[in-house]
């Protein structure tokens, strides 16, 4: 890494305190008026009352179907969108309490990697400017030093330094994703939200990018929130996994717990959807009936009950709280409470 002291990660916080903490975080979007002149507004609860901790150096996998609010949650943690309720504490500082200038300075420490490697790079800018943008904004280096730093970053993500003079359209999807990662790393962040970073890539390239991300995490002591829409992708990289359904976390546990001892019926269904390598060992596939309900009008009680094969009366009336049991395994389910 660069010898410039500004680049070395800031002193680690006292262990124990989470790097990122969400408290009761919620986001409602207006879905437009129901009629042209109606004053009645519809709101979509993209994320409702989510609390979670992300510890320094770990990878938290966040899994959910599209529309479950996982990307919104990721952006709320980075304060790229304003929460309608709750707050985010980053490294002991409440993001809502920061001035605009302080927030901009803090952005150096938390970055985002996007799903779409095409739309996330400005087609009119050379790689040099794309990767160098953060360096310029935070005045981390200038002139030759900046050039050297950009070349370093490109090599760090497995690209040739010659890529600097090229435009994004000259690269493949996987290479573009590497450029996007280099851009995020340019400001030497501590926390990265990886918003489905491999979903748009070929399977063979997915593994490369995941390996790269793991390698970078070790070398740069990064903390990840890895968002994915299936459990298979996060299995190798996450220490803990959170499962989201309709804006809520329904299960949160260590990776081994989630994969070996899933509690929530939704988690079980997701796990059963992973194709097994061994055709003999194939577990029975749990098929969920119906579609994800509309977040404009979520079901009463447990949001999952209309599709749940185990639903009981209480599930239709009372919303289950996320309760933590033995070994930090948290589940929000009436039928399968935590151990």
């Amino acid at each position, binding site marked *: 890494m660069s010898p410039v002291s500004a680049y070395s990660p800031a002193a680690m916080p006292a262990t124990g305190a989470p790097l990122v903490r969400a408290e009761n975080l919620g986001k409602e979007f207006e879905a437009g008026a129901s009629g042209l002149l109606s004053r009645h507004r519809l709101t979509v609860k993209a994320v409702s009352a989510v609390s979670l901790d992300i510890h320094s150096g770990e990878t938290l996998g966040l899994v959910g179907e599209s529309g479950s609010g996982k990307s919104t949650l990721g952006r709320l943690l980075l304060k790229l969108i304003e929460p309608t309720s709750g707050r985010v504490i980053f490294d002991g500082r409440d993001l809502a309490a920061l001035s605009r200038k302080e927030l901009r300075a803090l952005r150096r420490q938390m970055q985002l990697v996007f799903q779409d490697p095409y739309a996330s790079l400005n*087609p009119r800018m050379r790689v040099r400017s794309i990767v160098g943008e953060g360096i310029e904004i935070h005045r981390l280096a200038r002139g030759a030093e900046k050039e050297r730093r950009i070349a370093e970053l490109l090599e760090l993500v497995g690209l040739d330094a010659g890529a600097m003079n090229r435009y994004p359209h000259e690269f493949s999807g996987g290479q573009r994703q590497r450029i996007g990662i280099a851009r995020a790393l340019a400001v030497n962040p501590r926390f990265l939200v990886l918003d489905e970073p491999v979903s748009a890539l070929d399977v063979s390239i997915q593994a490369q990018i995941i390996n790269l991300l793991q390698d970078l995490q070790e070398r740069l002591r990064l903390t990840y929130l890895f968002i994915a829409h299936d459990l298979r992708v996060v299995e190798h990289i996450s220490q803990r996994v959170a499962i989201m359904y309709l804006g809520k976390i329904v299960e949160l546990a260590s990776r081994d717990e989630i994969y070996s001892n899933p509690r929530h019926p939704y988690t079980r269904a997701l796990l059963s959807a992973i194709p097994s390598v061994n055709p003999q060992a194939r577990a029975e596939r749990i098929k969920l009936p119906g579609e994800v309900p509309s977040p404009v009008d979520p079901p009463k009680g447990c949001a999952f009950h209309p599709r749940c094969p185990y639903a009981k009366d209480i599930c239709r009336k009372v919303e289950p709280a996320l309760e933590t049991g033995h070994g930090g395994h948290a589940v929000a389910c009436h039928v399968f409470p935590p151990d």
Partner: protein
Amino acid sequence: MSAAAPRTDIRLEAPPPERQASLGAKLRREWRLASWPVRLSTLCLAVFYILALGSPVIAPYNPTRQYRSLPDCPPMALHLAAPSEWRRGFFYAYPMRMTDAVRRTYAEERGVRTWVHLFSRGHIFTTAPGAPPYFLLGSDALGRDLFSRIVYGSRVSMFIGILGVAITFSLGITIGALSGYVGGLLDNLIMRWSEIEMSLPSFYFLLALAAIIPSGMSTVKTFFMIVAIMSFIGWAGFARVIRGMTASVRSVPYVEAARALGASRWRILRRHVIPSVMGYAIVAATLSIPGFILGESALSLLGLGIQEPAASWGNLLAQAEDVHALAHYPWILLPGVFIFLAVMSFNFLGDHLRDRLDPSHLR
């Protein structure tokens, strides 16, 4: 998922030498890519701007000089002198003599020659001070050289478009980008204001505003007033399109990435938003230049624009309003041909630019 085999796409071959073609090579390439109407348009506009910039040299006479004995004189033929006479001049014309003072008919005086000197006395071509004048495109009702007046008039028409577009363009881009990017109340205010402005019938509005211009104002001041008025009317539509494009760029991931990096709004506007709407803006600007030219012509035609004795293509054309004059002295319609050519050229060029700057054509 097992570790994938090493792929070849990670390592890039050595970067190609910088493709920084020289400006000349780029222009030659553009010329090759252009169709013949576009080439003609470019040439046409080049000639017009040369006329405008070099008016005092190109115009053979003072545009306000009245040759009282030669009103409504037709264009004169130019004759090539015999080689033996070349020390006196290469070209000559036969002076015109009025044969009917009422109907203003002319006949050439075959016995006399007026020599047309090239590159003399600071003009590209002119006649000796005392000699009868040579009217390339005829003269107007006051005996002023129409060609000289068209040349001087091109200054107004060619620069009103550029200046007007420069103002509309900067206003529209700034206001539109701001409105689209900041959004919220500011966006609402700006857009409602632009709607009010757009709902006014623009030509009547133009007339009303032009009528305010005091009649005693100098030509230069009038010129700037007209530009200001037309820009004031024209920015709204432009700003609205820029606003829409900006609002759509705002949610693009690369803009979000810039926000995540801590870029200020101003930086995002400058680095990401404005460059992405620039292609459209350039095309729209080129295509709106004819509007300014025509607007000025219309005002001048109605006597609200550039005032006599100063010349503009619009007020020169005003003389062609009279059917009688038009029937007998058709050359006074020539300024209209110049307006037509300029407008068509800008339209062809704008169309061509739209094709060239279309993102799907980007390399």
